[in-house]
């Protein structure tokens, strides 16, 4: 059981660790690349969206690369 818990906690920590790094990028520049509408919004919107970016970076990353190619 301990082994399963170790793996789970490690995956969880890695997921949220990457999420925090992505969140910083999202706040500074990524949000604009994902959705240009954010350009006309206040910075507080990006701050409010930060927890969501940390939580859902895995869904946003492909969208970011796709938008970059375009």
């Amino acid at each position, binding site marked *: 059981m301990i082994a399963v*818990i170790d793996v789970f*906690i490690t995956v969880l920590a890695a997921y949220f660790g990457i999420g925090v790094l992505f969140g910083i990028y999202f706040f500074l520049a990524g949000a604009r690349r994902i959705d240009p509408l954010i350009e006309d919004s206040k910075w507080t*919107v990006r701050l409010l969206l930060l927890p*969501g970016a940390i*939580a859902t970076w895995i869904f946003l990353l492909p969208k970011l690369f796709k938008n970059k190619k375009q």
Partner: protein
Amino acid sequence: MGLNYQTVLWNKHKKVYDKLIVAFMLIYIILFAGLTFAFNGETTIETLIIRAFGTLAVIMLHIILAIGPLSRLNTRFLPLLYNRRHLGVSMFLAAAVHGVFSIIQFHTLGNVNPIYSVFTSNLDYNSLANFPFQVLGFLALIILFFMAATSHDFWLKNLSPKTWKRLHMMVYLAYALIILHVFLGAFQQETSPFTIGFLSIGFVVIAVLHLAAGFKERRTDIAKAEKDEVNWLYVCTVDEIEENRAKIFTVGKERVAVFKYEGKLSAIHNVCKHQGGPLGEGKIVDGCITCPWHGYQYLPGNGQSPPPFTEKVATYELKLAADKIYLNPEAFPEGTEVQPVNC
């Protein structure tokens, strides 16, 4: 609807609802504290906070889960549905206070990482009676975090409505985990029958409401429509539809909303492009069909959102025979102009 994103989409009504939510939470916490100190004066502040916010979050979750089926059973509950998002975030905050204080009180005293301690302080995973119930609460809190963190239109648009909906349907998994968390915690840590009693009643109410709403919708879906000589489907009589409201009608596997307004009738696909809200449960406001969930609007004659918005839904053709409304089951492409029928 908007052309940029707002931090919080407040209007006059939403502000009233939010004040009510805050007042409810404050009154509950004060009452809980008063009753706890009156009947159990030895309770520590930490325990009081853990229990007050934990029970508050459970009550709020029950209210949130009841709003959906109640709105489908009776349109008077729709304003609650419109404001459910802020209630959900408030519920997460209450659950987070409960979770954080529980971890601080029970898992920060040793030299083990507190999160690791949640999973390993009790390794009796094979026992039902002694199962580490804290783990279930922790997992539920993670799900609630994902939901609260994505409670903004930005996420709905950028995660796609389908992914967003799937993510938010996980509230039922969180509810199951919370039910088990409280049941097992109550079994293991206290002998009071009240916790289990109230939770059982809450579970039964939620289950019955969902079943009742499901049966009501199923009745609408399986109702066999009468056809005329050219295979148009009989919907209802004109009098059966209230002014500025709709009758929801099922065509194959799709739901259609037939609206009556200003002496005219129009039919559009029932599903809002924003979040899949039931347009037929909304009403006509300022000449536009207005989704009851988040206020997205469509023109009844062509299913298009008024400019500069670009959302479009499919439209349907109607005809009247005496006072009977008939619908052509073939949908027009999204946004197609259809002449309203005069009634």
